[in-house]
Structures are given as C-alpha cells and as structure tokens.
C-alpha cells in the first residue's frame, strides 16, 4: 500500500493549480456561467486548446491518438483540479473509453483528438421513455439499409443534446435476439437531418443553480429520430455487441474525479462555512450536535475518496472491476444525500434560500443541492441496480 501521490504527481497538481489561477479568468468564468461548461464559447475553446498543448486531456490514452500513455492517476489529478474549478476535462460521459476499446482505427483517429481539443463532445443517448434503469429494454430502432442505417425512436433525458457535436446512441439492431444481444452503439453528428431536440426543464431552472451544484442542470432534452439516415461507419464495435461495448465505458464512467466530487463538495463547503461564518451571532462550529454530524460526514467523505482511489489503483494495475465501481456508485451518492440533508438541519431556514435570494447562503448552493443530490443515486446505474450488481457479481448471489 501507498497512500501518497509521488513527488512528480504533487508537482503536476501544483502546475495545474497555477495554470487554473492564471488561465481560468473572470472572463472565462463569465462565459461558463452564460453558456454552461460543456457548451463551449470561444474563451473556453481557447482554454481547451491550451490544455491540449500541455497534454492534460486524456493523459492515460495512447500517444497515437493524442494522449500521453500516462497514468490514470495523473489523469485523475488533472480532472480533480479542473472539476473543482468547474471545468470538465475528460471524465464522465466522454465516450472515450468505449471508443478506445471498440473503435476502428479511423474512429479512434477522428474522435479521440477531437475530444482532446474540445471540438467533439457527446450527448449520451441511452435512456428512453420506457427504458431507464432497465436500459436493455430500449426500443429505439436502427435498421441496416445498404451502406446506411435508418434510425427511428425517442431518447429521453438526453443532457447536452442541445449543444453536443455528436450523440452516442444505443439502439436496437436485432429485435428477435435476447434483449442484451440485439443492441448496437452509433456515433452520430447531432446536425444530421431529421434529428430533433426538445427541451425538458428540470427543477433547477428559475433560478438557475449556482456552479458546482450536484445535478444543477437546468435543462435536459428529449431527442427524436425520424427516418434518420447515417452511414454504416457510425457503428461503434460489431453490430449487436452494443451492450457490452457500452458497459466498458460505463464502468469507467462510474468512477473518477467528477463523480467523486459531486458527492463530497458540500462536505468541504459546510466545514468551511461554519468555520468562517456565524448566524446572527450563533457560532455553529461550537455546537456539539453540529460538530458530531460534521465529523461523521467528513469520515464518510473520506471513504468516498478512498473508494475512488481504489478504482484508480485497480485500473492502474490493469485489474478488473467486479463490484468496486458499483460499490462506489452506491456509497458516494447516498453520502451526498446525507450531507445535503444534514446541512439543511444545520443551517435551518437559511438552507432553503435559492440562488439570487436575499440572504442566500453561498449563492443558494445548499438549497439547490436539495433539489439535485438524490439524482446522482439514479443516474448511470441507480443505487438499487448497483446493489443488485454488487450482490450478483461481487458476492455470487443468484438472480432474483
């Protein structure tokens, strides 16, 4: 065991922090605030270009596709520092792990450098109105027609579909096969004809949640495909293997810096808040109930950190996840909810004040978190389904 980063990794972290101080300027932040981080304006594009030059995106990816052949832990360090500054670098939903694992040479050469320089981003087209946790029951249909596929169907809760360059789509290619064996993945430009996007507004809209809120997105989407024709080269991996290709990406998607941070950032916030503020003369840092609960939450947050590090350690050793990613995906989101709800009881009525309200605490982040934190236990594998996986894959228990 070794619970420290190497001196080189500490230096990397310092360099990234310095870079952020120097380059994530007020103007950049303003642009992010106006557009949202993943919807890149000119300043953010410029920032990504600089990141790419330094080799900080996709560090663990192969050099031939723009990566550094570096360690997953180095990549984690960069991702964590940027995530703390409100900027997504690689991490969740990049689509890259699956492309690396299953893509053709052409696809890797096209997509990976594009993901690195920020020209390409994916919306994830998994969920459908009738297929959520039970994703494999999805019905969106792709039919081969010569050199093309024709796609019909609907996707639901497709975050980023209104600004992403591409959609990473799961569709059914063989309706006769058992449900996991008839699915394929397609990488499709969003400007393809006959794809339409309709906004779905979340409970974080009006007022907009402040940066860093857990599930603070004001908007997600429905995406409709009506006789959408795409070249067969959009297929990722073999036809009908999409479930397994997707799983490669998802497992890695459940771990990493941004997943970890959305569950623990409020722990740091509340400690720092009660240290530095009082409520009308009441010093919360001296209240013994508050102290006990904060210490408990802090300890749980350390477990979230260590579970993330365990996943990194496993990846680094080239080992396989059996249940570890699922374990993290249960513990961390449920912890985030406990923290969020405890903070409400620590701050009392101040924790209800939303962004922009008179007397809102920390721009209302705690109030907005109450509307979003429970979502992290539903997305990307709900805690119930994750527990099933721990029991079945990790503990060898039978299907129910």
């Amino acid at each position: 065991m070794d619970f420290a980063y190497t001196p080189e990794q500490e230096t990397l972290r310092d360099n990234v922090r310095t870079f952020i101080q120097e380059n994530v300027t007020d103007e950049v932040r303003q642009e992010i605030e106006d557009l949202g981080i993943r919807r890149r304006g000119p300043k953010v594009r410029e920032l990504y270009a600089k990141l790419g030059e330094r080799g900080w995106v996709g560090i663990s990816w192969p050099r031939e596709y723009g990566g550094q052949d570096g360690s997953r832990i180095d990549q984690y360090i960069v991702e964590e520092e940027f995530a703390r500054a409100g900027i997504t670098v690689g991490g969740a939903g990049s689509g890259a792990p699956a492309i690396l694992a299953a893509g053709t040479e052409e696809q890797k050469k096209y997509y990976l450098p594009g993901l690195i320089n920020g020209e390409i981003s994916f919306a994830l087209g998994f969920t459908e109105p009738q297929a959520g946790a039970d994703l494999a029951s999805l019905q969106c249909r792709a039919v081969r027609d010569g050199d093309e596929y024709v796609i019909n169907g609907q996707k639901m809760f497709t975050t980023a579909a209104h600004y992403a360059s591409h959609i990473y789509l799961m569709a059914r290619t063989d309706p006769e096969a058992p449900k996991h064996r008839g699915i394929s993945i397609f990488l499709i430009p969003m400007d393809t004809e006959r794809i339409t996007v309709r906004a779905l507004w979340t409970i974080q809209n009006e007022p907009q949640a402040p940066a860093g809120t857990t599930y603070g997105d004001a908007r997600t989407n429905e995406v409709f495909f009506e006789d959408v024709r795409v070249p067969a080269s959009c297929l990722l991996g073999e036809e009908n293997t999409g479930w397994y290709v997707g799983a490669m990406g998802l497992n890695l998607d459940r771990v990493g810096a941004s997943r970890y941070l959305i569950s623990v950032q409020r722990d740091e916030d509340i400690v720092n808040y009660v240290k530095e503020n009082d409520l009308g003369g009441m010093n919360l840092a001296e209240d013994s109930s508050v102290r006990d609960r904060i210490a408990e939450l802090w300890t749980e947050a350390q477990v979230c950190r260590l579970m993330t590090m365990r996943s990194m350690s496993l990846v680094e050793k080239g080992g396989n996840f059996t249940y570890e990613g699922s374990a993290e995906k249960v513990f961390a989101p449920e912890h985030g909810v406990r923290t969020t709800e405890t903070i409400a009881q620590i701050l009392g009525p101040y924790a209800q004040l939303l962004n922009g309200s008179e007397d809102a605490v920390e721009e209302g982040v705690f109030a907005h978190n109450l509307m979003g934190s429970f979502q992290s236990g539903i997305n990307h594998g709900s805690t119930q389904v994750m527990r099933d996986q721990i029991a079945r894959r990790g503990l060898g228990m039978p299907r129910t």
Partner: protein
Amino acid sequence: MDVLPNEEEQMVKNLAREFLEAECPPRLARDMEKDDLGYPPELWKQLADLGWLGISLPERYGGQGLPLTYLGLITEELGRAIAPVPFHSTMVAALTIAAAGSDDQKQDLLPRAGRGDLVLTWAFSEENPRLLPETIQCQAVEDGDNFILSGTKMFVDNFVAAEKCLVACRTAPASDAGAGISLLLVDAGSTGVSQIPLTTLAKDKQSKVNFNSVRVPKANLVGELHQGWPVAQQMLDRGTALLCAQMVGAARKDAEMGIDYAKNRVAFGRPIAGFQSIQHICADMILWVDGAQLLTYEALWKMDQGLPASMEVSQAKSFCNDKCEAVVRSSQVLHGGMGFMMEFDLHLWYRRVTAWTMRLGTSFEHRSRIARGLLDQPGHVRLGMNLEVPA
C-alpha cells in the same frame, strides 16, 4: 498511490489466513471464554515461531522491523479468526516500549516479547473511561529509587495473562509544562496489585486492577517523567488502528458467513439469497467493511510513515464502530433464529465486534477529535489534505 495491498503484503496476509484456518478453529475461541488464562500457550508459541510477534519490532531487538501495515494485516487475520491470544495488548505495550523505552528496557523486553516469552498489557482507562489525560487519577509519587503507585485502572485487557503492565499515571498536576502523566511498567505480581475479573459481552479477559501503594523501580519509567501523555496518545492511536484492523477482519468474516448462509437457507421455495431485500443487505455489508478497511489501511500507513495520523485513526475507529456493528448485526438478521443460538458459532464474532466498538474510543469520542481537527484550527479544509487533531 495504491490503496490495495501489494504482492508481498498480500502474501503475508494469505499465509496468516491459511495458518489460522488450520490451527485456530472457532472452537478455540469458545473454549477460551471459559479458560482462566484466556489463551492457549501452544498457539501463542506458534505465532512467535512464525515471526508474527516480532514482525514490526525493531531488528536490533530481535524483530523483523517490517512496516506497521504488516502488523496490521496480521492483526486483521487474527480478528477474522477471532483468535483468543493476547496479541493486541502485547503489541500495544511492546511497540510503545520500542518507541519510547530506554535501550536497557528494549534489550530486556523486546526480544522476549518477540519470542513469545512475555505477555504484556497496558492500562489507561479509569472510572471515567474517556481517553484523555485529565481522567487519570492513578498517582505515582517518588520515593528514593522507586515510585509508589496507587489507584484503580478499568478494562485492562488480558491482565490475568500478562507478566507486566504499562500503566499511565499522574506524577504531576497538569500545567503549561504538560499533562503531568508518566508511564510505568509494573510487574503484575508486585505486592499491592490486585485484580477483579470483569464479565464482558465478549467473554474476554478484562480486569479492574487496583494498585495499592505498589513499589515500582524508577528504572521502569518508560519515556520521560511527567512527559508521558504524548507517548500515551501515540500508544492509544496505534492501539486503535490495530483494533480497527481486528474489527475489519472479524466483520468481513462475519459478513461472509451471512452471505453463505443466505445462499443455502431455503425459504418460500428458494434460497433467501435470491430475494432482493436480502441481496441489498449483503451489498451494504460489503460496502461498509470495504470502507472500514480502506480507512484503517490509510491510518496504519500514515502512522508507519511517521506522518500525523490522528484524524485518520479517529475516522477509522468511528466508522468501524458504526459500520462493523451494522455488519455483524445484519448477519445476525440473515441467520434468523439460528444466530441467537449458543451452539451456532456466529455469536462468537457478533459479541466480539460489538464489544470492540466500545474499546479504545467510542464513535462520539473519535468524532469529537475529528471535529477539533476540522473546526478548531484556522484555514480552509479540503479532502485529501493532511489534517491533524490539535493538541
């Protein structure tokens, strides 16, 4: 950064497990609950021969000088096997002597401890069981070449088996110069020492020990006079981290027994392991033990590196207290009525883990230390940073 045991560490752990599975069946733990000494000397000797007692003692004094993490892994396996041996108490005292004792003391005691010829224990808690210097009322006054020690210690582990006991006592009032605590190594057989056995949940060997004007030679002072609190605190932290390892080992075994039972127990026409509500209990048990284990390893590793580890120790123990307890209780639930039966072994683990949650700091005590580290010193906190409980 690699939070998993490396190959060598894993090998030591596996060997320890193999040995204990062969040589330390649950029957032994059961028998020793009724034994006067509380441990089988033959097994103790075997552990010494395997090198376990000296694994983290200094090489100069016959030990192997391996990192504390190795001792932690062995302790974890002993916990898994609920091995009835005075390992924890002996190691806690021996490591304290190794850290703060004089060369003569080390020369005299450590090789014997490593060989299995010397069972040790330590005594801190008193009537007020909080692990703070102000609770210490046992007093030692100087008298020529001796101290005269008087007072009562509570919950002294394995006192009936120990030849010597490291006693935290007051030699001066607390002042700006320090807490006024000293550590004395007392022969358990000295005139004026008496003990009353306590009947405990774990049915282990704990004693209430009375010191009635006991003469302790000045040569038995461990560390500096009046300056024993920092040494005692280190001792408590080390003991706590090792106890966490023991709890993690026992709780994981207990969880595995519950999971196996669920796979075999049929109700409503199928193994209860096929019910989702049972599966989710099992998933939680594993999550909790994993978390407890990661926190414990981090605490041991930091301590071994000589880094401040007070926060990590308290994180580990408060989490172990709450979650290892939840694990062993859940396993009882999975076992239905059987877990409640004396003839069935599960309770051997349940009673021990539960008792260990109250030893070396309750959740409240440890969380109060964590809160001090977080809230009672200036500066922004960030997860992953080094923090320390302020003195």
